[in-house]
């Protein structure tokens, strides 16, 4: 049951109506219990066999959180640290077991075989639970935040379980942090009109980017990757430049829908993107791309490593950033392409760190014409190209395919078959329009926050715009593609 489907509309209508019934608004516990129930139903639709895993890990971490707090209250600092470590190991162990065990075993076996040691390893038939990368990160951050005394452990299991399984975000994020989310579960939610209306607009925008842009660009990029050996360089270049936009439209589309659904239930879910294609260097790009993941890894991996390597000055920061980015890459899946993707981005951080540009946060300003300054625009374009190269590695099935694609891109020549027809051109125009809208709405959370335009202060005009977007979705909706980040 994906968010942009009729079945979800029906499901959510029931969830929404019951959620705001007066009987459930008596106490937060009732609303949390309802949220928990529907979240498990939603997760069950995606992968019912993994419900025991989700429930079991939630129970374990709830007990670990309470145990940790008890030890902290009694002043047992060493024991508290050990319990925290246990929590982190359990969370990472869960990820390693389900996501990486076969990969590391196969890689080790290959390595040993390559140096003459014959090793035969039978890989286990482990099924990857959907959403595991997202909910384990929530579980781990819960324990760490208790240890850092940023939150108190949740005394109510219903509340904690509903936070972990919160259905709009369980499959593909954003990864909500307990210090921001759990306090929201302690109050009764009555419908906040402004928040709910904004949520509806955000869902609509998410549907447009996913269904009209991502799904249609997917056809072009898939065609290019299927026959890159024979296609001309121009087509491969177009595909390489379109893939980051496709990925963004897909994932940001999902995130907007998830955040919008959260808002309809009265929750403010973490933001996941902040107009990443307006970044002028790679550090800024990562501050704008998949914010909930990069923020998580920065807080729990980069910052401790940065402190640990502080004696090495700038090279310590380089090492911390490199480890950070390789981990971000590998988080996406058990494939060396993801590791290489992270390593590539790590390399791009080195000149930024050594030049001191890494930590600088320069505000993006428009010139008198409302356009970006030429210098900024040049850096945005350059950064986008660097990102596109990284996504070639990300998109490839293996490292050799990434190199083969790049080689074809450089050597196939300019003439040959086209994979972009008249509709393809239209979808490329949609992609360009998306980037222009990103610039215009760079101060807003999403494109349909139009309060600053006097024209849109009138409801009929806003309605007309929403109808136009719906009409575009109905007319140009692409062949339905699974959300790319579901696989992670």
């Amino acid at each position, binding site marked *: 049951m994906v968010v942009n489907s009729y079945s979800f509309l029906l499901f959510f209508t029931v969830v929404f109506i019951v959620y705001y019934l007066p009987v459930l608004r008596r106490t937060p516990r009732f609303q949390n219990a309802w949220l928990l129930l529907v979240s498990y139903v939603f997760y069950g639709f995606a992968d019912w066999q993994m419900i025991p895993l989700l429930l079991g890990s939630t129970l374990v971490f709830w007990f670990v959180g309470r145990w940790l707090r008890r030890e902290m209250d009694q002043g047992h600092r060493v024991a508290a640290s050990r319990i925290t470590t246990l929590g982190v190991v359990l969370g990472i162990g869960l990820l390693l077991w389900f996501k990486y065990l076969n990969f590391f075993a196969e890689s080790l076996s290959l390595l040993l075989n390559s140096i003459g040691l014959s090793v035969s390893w039978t890989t286990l038939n482990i099924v990857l639970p959907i959403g595991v990368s997202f909910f384990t990160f929530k579980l781990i951050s819960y324990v760490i935040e208790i240890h850092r005394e940023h939150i108190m452990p949740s005394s109510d299991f219903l509340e904690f379980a509903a936070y972990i399984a919160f259905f709009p975000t369980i499959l593909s994020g954003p990864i909500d942090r307990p210090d921001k989310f759990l306090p929201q579960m302690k109050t009764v939610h009555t419908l906040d009109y402004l928040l709910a209306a904004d949520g509806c607009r955000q869902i609509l925008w998410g549907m447009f980017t996913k269904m009209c842009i991502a799904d249609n660009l997917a056809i072009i990029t898939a065609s290019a990757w299927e026959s890159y050996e024979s296609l001309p360089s121009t087509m491969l270049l177009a595909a390489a430049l379109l893939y980051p936009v496709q990925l963004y439209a897909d994932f940001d589309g999902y995130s907007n829908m998830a955040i919008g659904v959260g808002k309809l239930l009265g929750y403010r879910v973490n933001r996941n993107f902040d107009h990443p294609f307006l970044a002028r260097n790679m550090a800024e790009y990562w501050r704008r791309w998949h914010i909930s993941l990069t923020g998580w890894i920065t807080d729990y991996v980069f910052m401790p490593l940065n402190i640990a390597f502080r004696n090495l000055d700038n090279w310590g920061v380089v090492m911390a950033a490199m480890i950070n980015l390789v981990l971000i890459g590998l988080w996406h899946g058990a494939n060396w392409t993801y590791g290489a993707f992270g390593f590539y981005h790590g390399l791009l951080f080195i000149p930024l760190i050594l030049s001191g540009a890494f930590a600088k946060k320069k505000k993006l300003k428009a010139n008198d014409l409302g356009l970006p300054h030429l210098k900024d625009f040049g850096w945005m374009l350059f950064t986008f190209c660097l990102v596109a190269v990284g996504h070639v590695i990300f998109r490839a099935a293996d490292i050799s395919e990434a190199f083969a694609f790049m080689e074809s891109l450089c050597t196939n020549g300019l003439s040959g078959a086209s994979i972009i027809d008249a509709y393809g051109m239209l979808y490329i125009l949609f992609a360009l329009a998306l980037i222009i809208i990103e610039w215009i709405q760079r101060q807003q959370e999403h494109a349909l926050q139009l309060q600053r335009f006097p024209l849109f202060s009138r409801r009929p005009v806003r309605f007309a715009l929403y109808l136009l977007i*719906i009409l575009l979705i109905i007319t140009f909706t692409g062949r339905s593609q699974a959300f790319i980040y579901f696989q992670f």
Partner: protein
Amino acid sequence: MKKFLTILGSFAVVLFLMCAVIEVALLFRPNVYAYKRQYMDEHLHDIKILLLGSSHIEEAVKPELVGEGTFNLAISARLKEYDAALAEMYVPRMDSLKVIVMAVDYTNFFFERWILNPASSHHAPESLVSSCRCMHTKYMGTRIDPFWYWSEILNSRLNFMSRFWNNRQKLQECDSLGYVSLDPALRASDWEYRALPALIDSTKAIDPQSYQELYDSYAAVARLAQPKGVRLILVTPPVYKTYQQAVNPIVRQDMHDFCQKLHEAYPCVEYYDMLYEEGYLPEDFNDSSHLSDDGAVKFSHLLSEIISRRRQ
């Protein structure tokens, strides 16, 4: 809550009205389904040879080359049950009818055994079931579903909005006898890899339900043809070598067995498998399984020979 629901409700009403206006406006725009129905209604008693099927017939047979009184009622992406429904609507009333030609498509014989073909340019075939159901119900008057109305705006995936900015000739799609000519200038660069069939998982058994459904559709047409002395000619049109390479001999044998079974039950049924027919050049194809205009000329002559052979 009240304000939110009121505004959401009023927006939903406006949205519904917009969709309703588009839906009604579409009724007044020409389309191939409406044209073919109109032709059938007007020439019901003159048609001698009726062509049924999907794009493999619609774009492959030029009626004027097959013989006088031929009409191509085939339409792209049509399911076999709709062929049967149309035959039930028209055949009993067709006084001059001598021959019904129906396609036997290789892709109809997967019976839940198919797997993705990595060589295909477009992996997951888009399901046009809802489009087929919607357009046949609205414009051809077939009533094989319990629902009497299928919204075009929600169900059709055939670029329906372009009907507002295209002219009548383009919207009719076919010529006056129902043939759709494919423009060779618009042939895709990777045409050899387009419209390839899926592969077959030979470990899987045929799904008996889908087999029976297909059999029932053909049998329904045969039951109408037999008492009237009408020949039911089943044909599998030629395909390009890339398609031939993907053909599974097990499935091909299933096709032959299926047609033999039909012939034994209904002697009016004849089957001609031209999947590997020789004499077709690359320019005779628009993609791996659809003929170009040149190919359609060749195939129409061949079909004409088959029809006249038995007549003599």
